[in-house]
């Protein structure tokens, strides 16, 4: 295996003080703005992404409050304003938050550490990816404050060709963000392929790496299609080329095919990294090797590949031929199996374990609960006869929030709590961490479960006003959303407060066996002083809790095949 040595460009103002870490090794705005350090880029992504999450969340709360009353609660939210709000909520959450969330923030920080490397393969490209994200985000905000986009995040034609709002600024934003995503993906593919240390074969990789790798493949293969589609849409608006516009002989349904050819795989860009986090958490906090490693690893790849063949399930009532609907429905069911296998494996991992119900594990257990509901309700939507009724109703809204938010976001927050001591060298408050996990869990279910019921009762999505018989469900959902909002803010606050008063974190507080826990917390600028010894990522036998350190250390006597005498 060829090994690419990453660019060891030293950041501005870097000092070689052996006691410094990546956070303290240099100071000043430029040392962050121009950093090539994957850890700092990960932290900057984290801040940016949470900014987007907060914005999207505030928009969501506004929407929910507006829906308290059938004719709308606030008079300052007109029909147009409502349409703009839900569009922005969707666009900000998908493009600015959830797609980059796990890979760009946690992946950037953790992945090079997991392979025992100094950095990703292309550090400059990594920084470029971050700036593309920033510029893309600015474009989105331009669309927000100027004429206000109202097409839905899906940009369906011919509405998106006709509307007076600033579709072009928004598509430019999404286009740039697409490149940000491609850069991240490319970097991770090369890093995983070429920079694994000797001894780390494919099947000795942590499953988080498998997940990030599978995600990166989708990012690189699918995102260009979105870019081209959005360019065509812009060309249609500006030059009237007549590809999607029916009044010029174009086909509006073609746009849906293009769009979902990207956007279905994109849902796996969103969920696969969350699944990767889950595999780490379930194993570490159960102190058991992950059950069925090979099945989980292969199922990530299977999902990545099969995910390209099912886009038509978003279009069962679009007028596509019955034959293609039947084929897409069949393929869709095939992609449900790998996800089911993963859930079974995670639960089986707990068997005969020693389960530490720390906050990350609480999130992991919430994930299993919520993701199971999200995944199982997908069966109603994959089956043709029931989808006809449920398509474009709140049932779909509830389904994808259970998967995306109950899955990815919960895993993301769990992963953040898990790696937080490593990232910032402090321990958060365990009690409040668990309390807010419970608040999030309750709030989440209260928000989205009623949506399943009103959806199957026939409540269409994207409605600014609604028939009065749905009010009870809407009101429950709004109360849930407020609870969820409090829980999320609390969960983040617990982490932020720990930065100021958190106990100093040991190198390995959870007793995990992956390589990132072998360096100090927070890691030094160069990550590892010596190349770490590669063992099995899920073998916990040699790790013993040391009350003096407050964390786990490798027991030199018990280490079986360890020749790590450095």
């Amino acid at each position, binding site marked *: 295996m060829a090994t690419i040595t990453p660019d060891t460009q030293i950041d501005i103002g870097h000092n070689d003080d052996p006691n410094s870490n990546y956070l303290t090794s240099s100071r000043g705005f430029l040392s962050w703005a121009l950093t090539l350090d994957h850890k700092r880029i990960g932290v900057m992504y984290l801040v940016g992404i949470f900014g987007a999450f907060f914005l999207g969340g505030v928009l969501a709360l506004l929407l929910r409050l507006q829906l308290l009353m059938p004719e709308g609660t606030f008079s300052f939210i007109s029909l147009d304003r409502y*349409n703009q709000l839900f569009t922005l909520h969707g666009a900000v959450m998908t493009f600015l938050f959830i797609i980059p969330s796990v890979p760009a923030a946690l992946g950037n920080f953790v992945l090079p550490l997991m392979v025992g490397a100094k950095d990703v393969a292309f550090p400059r490209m990594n920084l470029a990816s971050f700036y593309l994200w920033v510029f893309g985000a600015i474009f989105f905000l331009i669309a927000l404050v100027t004429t206000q986009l109202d097409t839905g995040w899906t940009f*369906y034609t*011919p509405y998106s060709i006709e509307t007076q709002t600033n579709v072009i600024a928004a598509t430019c934003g999404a286009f740039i963000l697409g490149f940000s995503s491609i850069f991240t993906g490319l970097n991770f593919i090369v890093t995983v392929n070429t920079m694994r240390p000797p001894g780390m074969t494919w099947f000795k990789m942590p499953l988080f790496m498998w997940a990030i790798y599978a995600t990166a493949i989708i990012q690189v293969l699918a995102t260009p299609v979105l870019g081209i589609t959005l360019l065509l849409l812009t060309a249609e608006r500006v030059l009237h080329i007549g590809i999607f516009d*029916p009044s010029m002989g174009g086909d509006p349904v073609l746009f849906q095919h293009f769009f979902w050819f990207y956007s279905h795989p994109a849902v796996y860009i969103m969920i696969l990294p969350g699944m990767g986090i889950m595999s780490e958490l379930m194993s570490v906090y159960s102190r058991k090797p992950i059950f069925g490693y090979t099945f989980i690893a292969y199922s990530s790849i299977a999902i990545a590949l099969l995910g390209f063949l099912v886009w038509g399930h978003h279009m069962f009532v*679009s007028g596509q031929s019955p034959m293609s609907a039947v084929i897409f429905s069949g393929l869709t069911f095939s992609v*449900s199996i790998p996800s089911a296998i993963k859930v079974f494996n995670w*639960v089986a991992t707990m068997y005969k374990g020693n389960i530490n119900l720390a906050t990350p594990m609480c999130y992991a257990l919430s994930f299993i609960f919520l993701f199971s509901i999200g995944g199982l309700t997908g069966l*109603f939507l994959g089956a043709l006869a029931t989808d006809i009724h449920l398509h474009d109703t709140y049932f779909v809204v509830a389904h994808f929030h259970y998967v995306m938010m109950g899955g990815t976001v919960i895993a993301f927050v769990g992963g953040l709590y898990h790696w937080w001591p490593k990232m910032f060298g402090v321990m958060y408050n365990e009690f409040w961490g668990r309390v807010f996990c419970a608040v999030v869990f309750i709030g989440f279910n209260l928000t989205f479960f009623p949506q399943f019921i009103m959806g199957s009762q026939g409540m269409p*999505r994207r409605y600014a006003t*609604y028939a009065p018989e749905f009010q009870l469900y809407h009101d429950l959902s709004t109360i849930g959303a407020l609870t969820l909002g409090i829980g999320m803010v609390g969960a983040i606050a617990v982490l932020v407060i720990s930065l100021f008063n958190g106990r100093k974190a040991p190198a390995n507080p959870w007793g995990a066996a992956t390589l990132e826990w072998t360096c100090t917390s927070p890691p030094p600028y160069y990550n590892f002083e010596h190349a770490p010894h590669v063992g099995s990522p899920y073998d916990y036998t040699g790790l013993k809790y040391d009350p003096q350190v407050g964390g786990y250390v490798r027991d030199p006597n018990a280490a079986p095949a360890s020749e790590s005498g450095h």
Partner: protein
Amino acid sequence: MAHITGLDMHSILADTLFFPPERSTFAGDVDGLFNFIYYLCLFFFVLIIAAMTYFAIKYCARPGHSEKPSPSHNESLEITWSVIPSILVGVIFFYGFTGYLNMREAPEDAYEIQVYAKKWQWSFKYPNGAETTELHLPAGKPVKFLEQSADVLHSFYIPAFRIKMDCVPGRYTSTWAIPNATTGSGISIDGHQPYHLFCAEYCGQQHSQMRALVYVHEPAEFEAWAEKEANFLETKPPAEAGAILFQRKGCVQCHSVTGDRSTKYLGPPLNGQWGTERDVIPRGSSTPEKVMMDENYVRESIRQPMAKIVQGRKPGMTVFTPSLLNDKQITAIIAYLKSLKDEK
């Protein structure tokens, strides 16, 4: 028609909590499949969560407890839990698609209603010429909906029937249903409890208000209703009735009512013309003469278009004989033309 009879297990829970009442013959099949998936999901969900909770409690970290070795994989167990769900989703897929194919293929003799969607209103045309903005249907008969859209995507959704189909501009789409119960009795809509019809595909500003009501009548009453609705000449104000005829008899194809003089229209625009003079060339003559647009001129233009040709236009207007357009209808059109103002 194949029914998913084996799956027709209606639970009180699913009927009252999850669904609006079943008001088409599909609804039973759809709900049956829904319930089948629902109980299957419930079973697996309870299984997963029970195992998870049990493990979390039994193996919870506490003093004196430590992990015990157990195999980290088990081929036969893993194959079992891959294969069994695969078979079950295969079954779901099968019932899903057979039910769906039934919903796509309307029987030959179905009563056909044309559905027009435009921002943000529905309109429905019935075979006898009646046209409405609320949907009226005969109970117990297959009805086919032939859908068109004038502008952007819309979606024709009747939850009580469990049917939905997008209306795509520049293309026909269709769906069908057999309503299985009436919404009330009588031709008039008083005393009916109609169902919702929603636009389910986002279509802009008033998307959430693009709703209509669905009335289902006894077949005999439906006939009577349709008859009455088609005779709108008696029931509507003349100018409104005239506007409908102007549209329906195809005058719109050759005459603009917005002042458009372009060659897109064979004939001259007709708005703001009432009482004004124009130059026409009478039959057999070559010199133009002036004539004012009044009742008799319009009547003549319709019955014998060749009698006077508007200067600058070519003869080419359809001759509307009494069988195509009767006198009462002409009177209504005249009332309509009088009401058309000049567009400035």
